[in-house]
């Protein structure tokens, strides 16, 4: 029996490792040489993921998956089609290229088709960390034990959690000479601790490309503390409250703005950023002037892919600058049609913060609610980004500058746009451990007034 493997094999084989830039480029060239289309582009993605799940104080499932995907798009004038395969034999790759060409010829014209880009000046983001890549299955279970062992010993806690470490690379190449490559690792740890009496639940999480920056023990301890603090919640009336949202809760809601920040739908009249009478709201003040919303793959807390699906380089983009809408996403087609610059599709989401600690926010609050995280957010009205959802895993009443008791969870109906106009204080931004939507997100804790809780939930 072999010892548990390292995440990244030392002897890296093309068939089941993470592809280096040279390997990815060689594979892409092999495929592009098979093309007989007017133009073609190829994505090559390789990934190894090791994960560990535990629940009810036991390890439940754990696994290791390796895969390499190739995505070929063939273009004939305004016609295009895509085929994706994970079979890398010459025979299979040729079949994929031919299939994409056959489909493209049969497909109706796409009047919005844009020509492939030529070579781009793309800078490298260093997102590969040996500390993450060298983790073994034994390392993962040792990390999980930081939550499992104290829970088992306590006799009154039940722990469940998930630890996943990835190492992968993605590359894009086309027949016009473009080549983009990004290699990254990532470690994500989340844990939920519930009290055996069923009245308390606490959650905590952390994520970073560098395993050394994920403080596993601190996350486990924080979830346990939240679980104990949240026991025996009392019901308080739903209504408008001053609310302190921890970064996870802020990210759950604020990140949604990114989904609506599209110039085209705004210009078409079906977006919250549509100006009454037509056009979009670029240049208008839309939220508190302490808020800026930014995308930046090079930010050390982010380290995401610095190019988008078209191969456009991504740098620092400021969508909201001190409360003013400065930019919306312009696709290459819409930019051309409107005479604007294509922005590239961002791969990160950053909200700037302030300097007020959560403790200080609590101290300055005569009566309010502290929220750990939000759950099951769903659009209710796209005209205002009105969402509904619930609080979860640690909701507390603040009275006279102190946490006075755990309270039952609330359902809210509110919009991040409304909320960021009702801002009282901002804290230091933190990297989130994965919102419902996913992706690299950095946001601060905030304090807002008049947050709209519409009903109570009995859920713990």
């Amino acid at each position: 029996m072999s010892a548990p493997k390292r995440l990244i094999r030392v002897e890296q084989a093309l068939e089941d490792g993470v592809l280096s830039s040279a390997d990815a480029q060689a594979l892409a060239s092999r495929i592009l040489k098979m093309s007989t289309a007017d133009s073609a582009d190829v994505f090559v993605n390789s990934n190894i993921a090791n994960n560990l799940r535990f629940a009810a104080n036991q390890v439940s499932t754990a696994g290791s998956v390796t895969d390499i995907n190739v995505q070929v798009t063939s273009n004939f004038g305004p016609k295009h089609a895509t085929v994706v395969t994970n079979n890398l034999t010459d025979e299979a790759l040729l079949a994929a290229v031919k299939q994409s060409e056959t489909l493209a010829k049969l497909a109706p014209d796409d009047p919005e088709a844009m020509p492939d880009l030529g070579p781009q000046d793309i800078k490298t983001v260093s997102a590969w960390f040996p500390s993450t890549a060298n983790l073994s299955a034994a390392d993962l279970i040792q990390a999980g034990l930081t939550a499992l062992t104290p829970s088992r010993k306590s006799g009154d806690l039940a722990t469940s959690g998930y630890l996943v470490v990835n190492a992968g690379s993605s590359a894009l190449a086309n027949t016009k000479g473009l080549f983009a490559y990004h290699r990254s690792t990532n470690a994500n740890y989340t844990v939920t601790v519930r009290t055996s009496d069923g009245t308390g639940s606490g959650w905590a999480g952390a994520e970073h490309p560098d395993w050394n920056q994920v403080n596993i023990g601190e996350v486990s301890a924080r979830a346990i503390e939240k679980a104990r603090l949240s026991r025996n919640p009392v019901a308080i009336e739903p209504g408008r409250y001053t609310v302190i949202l921890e970064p996870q809760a802020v990210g759950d809601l604020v990140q949604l703005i990114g989904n609506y920040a599209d110039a085209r739908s705004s210009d078409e009249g079906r977006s919250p950023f549509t100006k009454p009478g037509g056009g979009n709201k670029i240049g208008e003040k839309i939220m508190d002037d302490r808020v800026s919303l930014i995308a930046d793959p090079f930010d050390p807390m982010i380290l995401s892919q610095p190019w988008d699906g078209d191969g456009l380089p991504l740098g620092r983009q400021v969508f909201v600058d001190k409360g003013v809408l400065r930019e919306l996403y312009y696709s290459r087609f819409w930019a051309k049609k409107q005479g604007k610059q294509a922005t590239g599709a961002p791969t990160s989401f950053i909200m700037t913060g302030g300097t007020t600690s959560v403790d200080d926010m609590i101290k300055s609050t005569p009566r309010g609610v502290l929220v750990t995280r939000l759950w099951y957010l769903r659009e209710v009205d796209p005209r205002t980004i009105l969402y509904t959802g619930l609080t979860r895993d640690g909701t507390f009443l603040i009275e006279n500058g102190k946490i006075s008791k755990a309270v039952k969870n609330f359902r809210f109906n509110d919009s991040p746009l409304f909320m960021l106009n009702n801002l009282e204080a901002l804290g230091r931004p933190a990297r989130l451990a994965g919102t419902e939507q996913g992706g690299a997100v950095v946001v601060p804790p905030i304090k807002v007034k008049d947050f709209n809780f519409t009903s109570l939930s009995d859920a713990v």
Partner: protein
Amino acid sequence: MKTRRDFLKQSGLTAAAIAAVGTLSPASAMAGLIRTAAVEMPPDDVVRALMLDAITAAKSAGASYSDVRIGRYRNSIVFTREQQIVQTADLDNVGAGVRTLVDGTWGFGATKTLTRDGVVAAAREAVAIAKANRIARDQPVQLSPVQAYPNATWKSSFTTDPFTIPVEQRADLLLKANAEALKVKGVRFVNSGLLFVKEDRNFASTEGSVIAQTIVRVAIPFAITAVSADFSDFQTRTNVVAPAGRGWEYVLEQDLVGNAGKWAEEAVQKLSAKSVEVGRYDLVLHPTHLWLTIHESIAHPTELDRALGYEANYAGTSFVSPPEKMLGKLRYGPEFMNIQGDRTQEGACATIGYDDEGVKPDQFLIIKNGIVNDYQTTREQANWLKWWYDSQGRPTRSHGCSNADSWGTVQFQRMPNVSLLPGEKEQSYEDIIAATDRGIAIVGDGSFSIDQQRYNAQFGGQVFYEIKGGKIIGMLKDVAYQMRTPDFWNSMDMIGGRKSYELGGSFFDGKGQPPQINAVSHGAVPARFRNINVINTGRKA
């Protein structure tokens, strides 16, 4: 996180797909649709030999039990908007996943390399992971009995394989339907698509089963948006056709071209509909809406792994817990309420011949005469309810709810088709409206959100009608209802009969870590709920 999902997001494929279809429960499980490859799997005898190699390797490495799935997962998509094509793609992904049980602890290894060396390495990796994790398990996993099927095959219910329909024919159908919708004054945008799924699933286990199955499913996302002339409002009518475990014939039966004008009229009417007054109303919920309420408030809380805390860190737990205080005791709804789990239902999305543990699924009543009667189970979980099955004189066996969404994900408990059975009296949606004095009828599923124990939910819809004196007197908008699950179902006082039964469903029910999707159908009849809290969602600040 650097995952396949991110890659596909970057490549733009999921963006088109997400724009066209909603997803159910945690996050954008839709990304899982976009899977990947382009060449056939090895021939059947090679697959069989590879599977036997994998489980033999697992056994000799120390596994007490092992199963292997070698699968080919194909998707074909065509997306359009207005009178143009947006995306055409074929996705094909092949690989092997090996699960092992070593000293009562699970391990899983998966590889795309379909060679003897590839699957044996995955099997050994699975065993190594199980051994490493033994330290964190003090209650060994035990599997309930299963029959061996040494040479089984199964094919889902379709007459025309949708993958045989040329892409131009699919695009032509969508563009014609889009054109019909665009003829209606006020309609500005149409997003439509055809999503086809075909899965060749091969399974073998150390219990002696070797099973080959072929599954086909189709979904038809279709969204029509009307914009007011002064750009002050926009309204969308979507979710018009349910997905199904059927073929191209199902697509044709929907008569997209014939119906598009009607759906478009509804989108335009929503612009001028009256904004609802908040308050309590009797709700008449059409099956095209009620399936989703069943999904969220009955099907999820009766997943046994949720009820026992196994999903606490993500999808959540359940108020239908602990089982010993619920089974035979908890009144979920009225006497005439019967909820059935069933992966044998022809044409439904979760239907299968054998599940991902080689279990032949059965029909079972989750709610019987209004009382909790059973949970959704796998082989590991069925044993946890042995005391209950013994007390009922029923055998302890899995209901066949084990499922993985790919060769590269580990199988676990997923939802079967879970349906509200028809009432004895043959009455229709219209009959129930006629019997209602003051209420709101809701057609189609819209916004949905429910807490992690499935108590407190809020549902929107697609089209809302005001009922007065047994008649529909006009359309409403900005409607959502908030409810507490047991109170809601106990307020149900009328349900439709057999002729009013329809299937709804989703391709994208999300659960698990890493997140997996599951396709599921829910049968429903129209039903009335008394005195439900309705809110107005049309806030401006």
